């Protein structure tokens, strides 16, 4: 008969009568505030009392947080690099090299007349050579050539998706080659998407590791305070009261590890800034490195705090219940 309550432990018990009456509400708010103040401060004191153990745990947690954030930052930068070619929807239609200027004009008119084409721009072989000379750095090598090997190019801007248009234009006998940059962009996007998924998987795994680290630290803490917990329970402390300092321990681990992780990320950004700026300069500053945004910073902090709290909650709830009769 008395085992009944023991089995009920697995199910959530109904709210105890003492908590419901409105008469106690005023008392409860003050008590609640007092207890949280107590929990917040006492847990911080306990962390400060063991600086070595605390900083080791924090270092492990911070690294577990830093890795996925850095990976994500890398992807985000790559994505913005990909974004700059986002508007490269144009098809480059290379005319057959033996086509003369009039034939190229005729081809352009024919293509321009199509309903799925927005605009057509002609780049003559001379223009192409000039562009190539100025951008590729092969100017000296090009001087060796006695003739211009470049064909005329039509830059065709499709109205919609250009894949079908590319296939059709390729069939034209006057066309040598159709290069559709969007395909390359799609491949890049696919690569970035798989990278994003990998970052997510990594983040989940490392978050799990952070949970286990916090949980294990809190478990050791609970074991070291068995007698204290037992005494508090005998004096009428609820599970919530006993659990609270441990939740705050987890909270502090989360907050401090988050801050530490942000510092590490900041240092990595700082260390990479100079060489990346050099690299960017060599590419005419067509891209730049961007760091963690304010929103990203807040997400890292909130995430690490939530992880610390949840890890502590999981462990504390399980271990504190063991000390009480059913």
């Amino acid at each position, binding site marked *: 008969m008395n085992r009944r309550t023991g089995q009920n432990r697995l199910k959530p018990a109904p709210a105890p009568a003492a908590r419901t009456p409105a008469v106690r509400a005023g008392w409860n708010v003050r008590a609640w505030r007092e207890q949280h103040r107590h929990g917040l401060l006492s847990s911080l004191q306990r962390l400060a009392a063991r600086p070595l153990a605390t900083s080791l745990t924090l270092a492990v947690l911070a690294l577990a947080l830093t890795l996925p954030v850095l990976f994500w930052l890398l992807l985000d930068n790559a994505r913005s690099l990909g974004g700059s070619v986002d508007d490269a929807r144009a098809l480059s239609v290379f005319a057959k090299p033996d086509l003369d200027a009039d034939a190229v004009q005729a081809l352009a008119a024919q293509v321009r007349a199509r309903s799925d084409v927005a605009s057509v721009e002609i780049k003559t072989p001379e223009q192409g050579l000039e562009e190539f000379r100025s951008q590729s750095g092969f100017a000296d090598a090009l001087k060796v050539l006695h003739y211009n090997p470049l064909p005329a190019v039509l830059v065709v801007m499709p109205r919609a998706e250009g894949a079908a248009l590319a296939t059709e234009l390729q069939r034209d006998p006057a066309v040598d080659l159709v290069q559709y940059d969007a395909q390359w962009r799609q491949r890049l996007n696919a690569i970035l998407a798989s990278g994003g998924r990998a970052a997510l998987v990594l983040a989940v795994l490392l978050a799990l590791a952070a949970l286990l680290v916090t949980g294990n630290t809190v478990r050791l803490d609970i074991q070291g305070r068995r007698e204290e917990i037992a005494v508090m329970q*005998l004096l*009428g402390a609820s599970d919530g*009261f006993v659990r609270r300092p441990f939740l705050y321990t987890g909270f502090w681990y989360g907050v401090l590890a988050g801050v530490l992780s942000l510092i590490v990320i900041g240092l990595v950004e700082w260390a990479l800034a100079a060489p990346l700026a050099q690299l960017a300069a060599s590419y005419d500053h067509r891209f730049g490195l961007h760091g963690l945004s304010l929103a990203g910073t807040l997400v890292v902090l909130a995430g690490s705090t939530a992880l610390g709290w949840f890890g502590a909650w999981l462990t504390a709830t399980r271990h504190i219940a063991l000390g009480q009769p059913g």
Partner: protein
Amino acid sequence: MIRFDNVSKRYASGHDALSELSFEIGAGEMAFVTGHSGAGKSTLLKLVSLMERPTRGQIAVNGQSLNQTRRRGIPQVRRGIGMVFQDHRLLLERSIFDNVALPLVIAGTARDETGKRVRAALDKVGLLAREHALPLALSTGEQQRVGIARAIVAKPPLLIADEPTGNLDPQLAAEVMTLFGEFQQVGTTVLVASHDLPLIKRMGKRVLVLDHGRLIDDYRPSERGPSERGPAA
């Protein structure tokens, strides 16, 4: 205040600690539970404080049926009971003040109110000057008195003590018992488990005698003159 109706307790090991125990202790009454070791004194107190559950029978404390108290209701019941242990169970790394304040912190009492009540309780047991000391800096008798201050600081209607004088010399034991008597005089119900028969006799209070888990006697010694109060039961 405490009512046992045909209460039996059998431990998982098969040992029958209490058998068909029935008694009632009225509000404001002081009573001793005595008997040889293993007679069931501690088990009786553990049932009152919900450290154990009865195998059979009904227990009511402070008007509340313990049989119907779920796990989450246990803290509420315990806050109405001041507990004194033989080994005092103080938290050794906390000061005397913090130890005594613990029940008030648990109950969420305001800080200034806590300070006042802790000092009043320490004053009552004569240890006000030692509030900043750690428990290990105190003598055994002093430690026990801190345990008593902790038990009464929240002014619970019921005080229970398991062999509170077990580790004390006769003079200290008598002092501690006198303290319990004083709490009864201000209206607290006091239940003390003890096997110190001479001391119990001198107190002149009601005595429940257990033998192998059965209640074999329930009397009031009258060596110390006429009794002021009759048992409320």
